[in-house]
Protein backbone atom coordinates (compact mmCIF):
# COMPACT_ATOMS: atom_id res chain seq x y z
CA UNK A 1 0.00 0.00 0.00
CA UNK A 2 1.55 3.33 -0.98
CA UNK A 3 2.18 5.83 1.79
CA UNK A 4 -0.20 8.50 0.49
CA UNK A 5 -3.06 6.01 0.42
CA UNK A 6 -2.27 4.90 3.96
CA UNK A 7 -2.15 8.52 5.12
CA UNK A 8 -5.55 9.21 3.59
CA UNK A 9 -7.25 6.05 4.85
CA UNK A 10 -5.62 6.26 8.28
CA UNK A 11 -6.65 9.88 8.79
CA UNK A 12 -10.18 9.02 7.66
CA UNK A 13 -10.33 6.11 10.12
CA UNK A 14 -9.18 8.25 13.05
CA UNK A 15 -11.55 11.11 12.20
CA UNK A 16 -14.51 8.78 11.73
CA UNK A 17 -13.87 6.89 14.97
CA UNK A 18 -13.47 10.17 16.85
CA UNK A 19 -16.79 11.18 15.33
CA UNK A 20 -18.33 8.02 16.73
CA UNK A 21 -17.20 8.90 20.25
CA UNK A 22 -18.02 12.60 20.09
CA UNK A 23 -21.45 12.74 18.44
CA UNK A 24 -24.52 12.79 20.63
CA UNK A 25 -27.09 11.30 18.27
CA UNK A 26 -26.74 7.48 18.31
CA UNK A 27 -27.58 7.22 14.60
CA UNK A 28 -24.77 9.65 13.74
CA UNK A 29 -22.41 7.63 15.97
CA UNK A 30 -23.41 4.52 14.06
CA UNK A 31 -22.86 6.13 10.66
CA UNK A 32 -19.41 7.28 11.75
CA UNK A 33 -18.63 3.71 12.84
CA UNK A 34 -19.87 2.39 9.48
CA UNK A 35 -17.44 4.77 7.78
CA UNK A 36 -14.62 3.46 10.01
CA UNK A 37 -15.48 -0.14 9.12
CA UNK A 38 -15.59 0.58 5.38
CA UNK A 39 -12.29 2.38 5.69
CA UNK A 40 -10.71 -0.58 7.49
CA UNK A 41 -12.05 -2.87 4.79
CA UNK A 42 -10.29 -0.71 2.20
CA UNK A 43 -7.07 -0.91 4.22
CA UNK A 44 -7.35 -4.72 4.34
CA UNK A 45 -7.76 -4.85 0.57
CA UNK A 46 -4.77 -2.53 0.22
CA UNK A 47 -2.79 -4.95 2.40
CA UNK A 48 -3.49 -7.81 0.01
CA UNK A 49 -6.21 -9.39 2.14
CA UNK A 50 -9.03 -9.05 -0.39
CA UNK A 51 -11.24 -11.77 1.04
CA UNK A 52 -11.04 -10.44 4.59
CA UNK A 53 -11.64 -6.90 3.35
CA UNK A 54 -14.78 -7.92 1.51
CA UNK A 55 -15.93 -10.06 4.46
CA UNK A 56 -15.41 -7.02 6.67
CA UNK A 57 -17.72 -4.97 4.48
CA UNK A 58 -20.34 -7.72 4.14
CA UNK A 59 -20.38 -8.90 7.77
CA UNK A 60 -19.62 -5.76 9.73
CA UNK A 61 -21.17 -3.06 7.59
CA UNK A 62 -23.87 -5.16 6.00
CA UNK A 63 -25.00 -7.22 8.97
CA UNK A 64 -23.73 -6.11 12.37
CA UNK A 65 -24.07 -2.37 11.84
CA UNK A 66 -27.55 -2.76 10.36
CA UNK A 67 -28.48 -4.78 13.44
CA UNK A 68 -27.34 -1.84 15.58
CA UNK A 69 -29.44 0.48 13.42
CA UNK A 70 -32.51 -1.70 13.93
CA UNK A 71 -32.00 -1.65 17.68
CA UNK A 72 -31.57 2.13 17.74
CA UNK A 73 -34.80 2.52 15.82
CA UNK A 74 -36.59 -0.10 17.92
CA UNK A 75 -35.66 1.69 21.13
CA UNK A 76 -36.40 5.08 19.51
CA UNK A 77 -33.22 6.65 20.88
CA UNK A 78 -32.98 10.42 20.67
CA UNK A 79 -30.07 12.82 20.80
CA UNK A 80 -28.61 12.81 24.29
CA UNK A 81 -28.93 16.04 26.25
CA UNK A 82 -25.72 17.81 27.21
CA UNK A 83 -24.89 17.01 30.80
CA UNK A 84 -22.41 19.31 32.46
CA UNK A 85 -21.66 17.26 35.54
CA UNK A 86 -19.51 14.54 34.04
CA UNK A 87 -16.69 16.83 32.94
CA UNK A 88 -14.16 15.15 35.22
CA UNK A 89 -15.01 11.75 33.80
CA UNK A 90 -14.65 13.04 30.26
CA UNK A 91 -11.30 14.62 31.06
CA UNK A 92 -10.17 11.39 32.68
CA UNK A 93 -11.32 9.41 29.66
CA UNK A 94 -9.60 11.67 27.17
CA UNK A 95 -6.34 11.78 29.14
CA UNK A 96 -6.35 8.06 29.81
CA UNK A 97 -7.03 7.25 26.19
CA UNK A 98 -4.29 9.61 25.01
CA UNK A 99 -1.82 7.98 27.41
CA UNK A 100 -2.92 4.52 26.29
CA UNK A 101 -2.56 5.48 22.61
CA UNK A 102 0.92 6.85 23.17
CA UNK A 103 1.98 3.80 25.18
CA UNK A 104 0.57 1.29 22.69
CA UNK A 105 1.97 3.16 19.71
CA UNK A 106 5.45 3.27 21.26
CA UNK A 107 5.31 -0.38 22.25
CA UNK A 108 4.00 -1.59 18.91
CA UNK A 109 6.29 0.51 16.76
CA UNK A 110 9.39 -0.02 18.88
CA UNK A 111 8.97 -3.79 19.07
CA UNK A 112 11.28 -5.08 16.41
CA UNK A 113 8.91 -5.94 13.56
CA UNK A 114 9.40 -9.25 11.84
CA UNK A 115 11.47 -9.09 8.73
CA UNK A 116 9.21 -8.76 5.71
CA UNK A 117 8.64 -11.94 3.81
CA UNK A 118 10.73 -12.08 0.69
CA UNK A 119 7.77 -12.67 -1.58
CA UNK A 120 4.13 -13.27 -0.85
CA UNK A 121 2.97 -16.80 -1.72
CA UNK A 122 0.87 -17.14 -4.83
CA UNK A 123 -2.80 -16.55 -4.20
CA UNK A 124 -2.13 -14.65 -0.95
CA UNK A 125 -5.40 -13.40 0.52
CA UNK A 126 -7.58 -15.29 -1.91
CA UNK A 127 -10.63 -17.28 -0.85
CA UNK A 128 -8.84 -20.50 -1.79
CA UNK A 129 -5.89 -19.91 0.53
CA UNK A 130 -8.15 -18.89 3.44
CA UNK A 131 -10.32 -21.95 2.90
CA UNK A 132 -7.26 -24.18 2.78
CA UNK A 133 -6.15 -22.82 6.16
CA UNK A 134 -9.64 -22.99 7.66
CA UNK A 135 -10.28 -26.57 6.69
CA UNK A 136 -6.87 -27.94 7.57
CA UNK A 137 -5.08 -26.22 10.46
CA UNK A 138 -8.13 -24.56 11.97
CA UNK A 139 -10.74 -27.22 11.34
CA UNK A 140 -11.61 -27.77 15.01
CA UNK A 141 -11.90 -24.04 15.67
CA UNK A 142 -14.09 -23.71 12.61
CA UNK A 143 -16.43 -26.44 13.83
CA UNK A 144 -16.57 -24.98 17.33
CA UNK A 145 -17.53 -21.66 15.73
CA UNK A 146 -20.77 -23.20 14.52
CA UNK A 147 -21.62 -24.23 18.09
CA UNK A 148 -20.82 -20.69 19.25
CA UNK A 149 -23.15 -19.17 16.68
CA UNK A 150 -25.92 -21.61 17.58
CA UNK A 151 -25.51 -20.73 21.26
CA UNK A 152 -25.62 -17.03 20.36
CA UNK A 153 -28.84 -17.45 18.37
CA UNK A 154 -30.53 -19.39 21.18
CA UNK A 155 -29.27 -16.94 23.79
CA UNK A 156 -30.41 -13.89 21.85
CA UNK A 157 -33.90 -15.32 21.38
CA UNK A 158 -34.07 -16.29 25.03
CA UNK A 159 -32.99 -12.82 26.16
CA UNK A 160 -35.14 -10.75 23.85
CA UNK A 161 -38.28 -12.90 24.06
CA UNK A 162 -41.16 -11.31 25.88
CA UNK A 163 -42.44 -13.75 28.47
CA UNK A 164 -46.21 -14.13 28.48
CA UNK A 165 -47.73 -12.35 31.47
CA UNK A 166 -49.55 -15.53 32.53
CA UNK A 167 -46.30 -17.39 33.15
CA UNK A 168 -44.49 -14.44 34.62
CA UNK A 169 -46.91 -13.40 37.36
CA UNK A 170 -47.25 -16.76 39.20
CA UNK A 171 -43.50 -17.19 39.25
CA UNK A 172 -42.96 -13.85 40.92
CA UNK A 173 -45.81 -14.53 43.36
CA UNK A 174 -44.31 -17.86 44.22
CA UNK A 175 -40.92 -16.28 44.74
CA UNK A 176 -42.52 -13.69 47.00
CA UNK A 177 -44.25 -16.45 48.96
CA UNK A 178 -40.98 -18.29 49.40
CA UNK A 179 -39.23 -15.17 50.63
CA UNK A 180 -42.08 -14.38 53.02
CA UNK A 181 -42.23 -17.92 54.38
CA UNK A 182 -38.48 -18.02 54.78
CA UNK A 183 -38.57 -14.72 56.62
CA UNK A 184 -41.50 -15.86 58.79
Amino acid at each position, binding site marked *: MPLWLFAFLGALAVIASLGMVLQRNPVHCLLALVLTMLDLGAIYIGLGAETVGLLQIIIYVGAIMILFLFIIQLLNLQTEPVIGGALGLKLLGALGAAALAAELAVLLTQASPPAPAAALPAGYGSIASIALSLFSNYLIAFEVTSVLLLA*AVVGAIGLARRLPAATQAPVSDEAGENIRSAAG
Partner: protein
Amino acid sequence: MTPVSYFMGLSAVLFAIGVAGMIVRRNLIVMFMSIELMLNAVNLAFVALGRQLGSMDGQVIVFFAMTVAAAETAIGLGILIATFRNRATIDADDLNLLRW
Protein backbone atom coordinates in the same frame (compact mmCIF):
# COMPACT_ATOMS: atom_id res chain seq x y z
CA MET B 1 5.38 0.90 0.56
CA THR B 2 4.13 1.73 4.04
CA PRO B 3 6.15 0.19 6.90
CA VAL B 4 4.23 -2.17 9.16
CA SER B 5 4.89 0.00 12.21
CA TYR B 6 2.56 2.66 10.74
CA PHE B 7 -0.27 0.15 10.70
CA MET B 8 0.56 -0.77 14.29
CA GLY B 9 0.38 2.90 15.24
CA LEU B 10 -3.00 3.32 13.55
CA SER B 11 -4.23 0.21 15.31
CA ALA B 12 -3.08 1.61 18.68
CA VAL B 13 -4.81 4.94 18.06
CA LEU B 14 -8.09 3.30 17.04
CA PHE B 15 -7.98 1.01 20.09
CA ALA B 16 -7.40 3.99 22.38
CA ILE B 17 -10.32 5.87 20.81
CA GLY B 18 -12.47 2.82 21.54
CA VAL B 19 -11.31 2.84 25.17
CA ALA B 20 -12.10 6.56 25.39
CA GLY B 21 -15.59 5.94 24.04
CA MET B 22 -16.10 3.23 26.63
CA ILE B 23 -15.12 5.60 29.46
CA VAL B 24 -16.71 8.83 28.27
CA ARG B 25 -20.05 7.69 26.88
CA ARG B 26 -22.88 6.60 29.15
CA ASN B 27 -25.17 5.34 26.40
CA LEU B 28 -24.99 1.54 26.44
CA ILE B 29 -25.37 1.21 22.67
CA VAL B 30 -22.51 3.63 22.00
CA MET B 31 -20.36 1.83 24.57
CA PHE B 32 -21.10 -1.34 22.65
CA MET B 33 -20.03 0.33 19.40
CA SER B 34 -16.76 1.25 21.12
CA ILE B 35 -16.16 -2.43 21.81
CA GLU B 36 -16.64 -3.14 18.10
CA LEU B 37 -14.11 -0.43 17.29
CA MET B 38 -11.56 -2.01 19.64
CA LEU B 39 -12.09 -5.42 18.04
CA ASN B 40 -11.51 -3.89 14.62
CA ALA B 41 -8.34 -2.14 15.75
CA VAL B 42 -6.89 -5.49 16.81
CA ASN B 43 -8.00 -7.06 13.52
CA LEU B 44 -6.03 -4.42 11.68
CA ALA B 45 -2.89 -5.38 13.60
CA PHE B 46 -3.47 -9.04 12.73
CA VAL B 47 -3.86 -8.36 9.02
CA ALA B 48 -0.84 -6.05 8.85
CA LEU B 49 1.44 -8.48 10.70
CA GLY B 50 0.19 -11.42 8.65
CA ARG B 51 1.05 -9.50 5.52
CA GLN B 52 4.50 -8.75 6.92
CA LEU B 53 5.11 -12.44 7.62
CA GLY B 54 3.58 -13.59 4.36
CA SER B 55 1.34 -15.92 6.37
CA MET B 56 -2.41 -16.55 6.08
CA ASP B 57 -2.84 -17.18 9.81
CA GLY B 58 -3.50 -13.54 10.61
CA GLN B 59 -6.39 -13.40 8.17
CA VAL B 60 -7.87 -16.64 9.46
CA ILE B 61 -7.80 -15.26 13.01
CA VAL B 62 -9.55 -12.11 11.77
CA PHE B 63 -12.21 -14.37 10.31
CA PHE B 64 -12.73 -15.99 13.71
CA ALA B 65 -12.73 -12.60 15.43
CA MET B 66 -15.53 -11.48 13.12
CA THR B 67 -17.54 -14.59 14.00
CA VAL B 68 -17.10 -13.97 17.71
CA ALA B 69 -18.05 -10.32 17.19
CA ALA B 70 -21.25 -11.37 15.44
CA ALA B 71 -22.18 -13.71 18.30
CA GLU B 72 -21.29 -11.03 20.85
CA THR B 73 -23.44 -8.46 19.04
CA ALA B 74 -26.45 -10.76 19.00
CA ILE B 75 -26.19 -11.46 22.73
CA GLY B 76 -25.30 -7.89 23.66
CA LEU B 77 -28.19 -6.37 21.78
CA GLY B 78 -30.50 -8.99 23.33
CA ILE B 79 -29.35 -7.90 26.78
CA LEU B 80 -29.86 -4.29 25.75
CA ILE B 81 -33.44 -4.91 24.68
CA ALA B 82 -34.17 -6.83 27.87
CA THR B 83 -32.69 -3.95 29.90
CA PHE B 84 -34.72 -1.38 28.03
CA ARG B 85 -37.89 -3.38 28.51
CA ASN B 86 -37.39 -3.69 32.25
CA ARG B 87 -35.93 -0.28 33.09
CA ALA B 88 -36.98 1.90 30.11
CA THR B 89 -33.46 3.30 29.92
CA ILE B 90 -30.14 2.35 28.39
CA ASP B 91 -28.13 4.94 30.26
CA ALA B 92 -25.37 3.15 32.16
CA ASP B 93 -25.64 5.63 35.05
CA ASP B 94 -29.28 4.72 35.64
CA LEU B 95 -28.49 1.04 36.12
CA ASN B 96 -27.23 1.38 39.68
CA LEU B 97 -29.00 -1.41 41.55
CA LEU B 98 -25.74 -3.20 42.38
CA ARG B 99 -23.82 -0.03 43.12
CA TRP B 100 -22.90 1.04 46.62
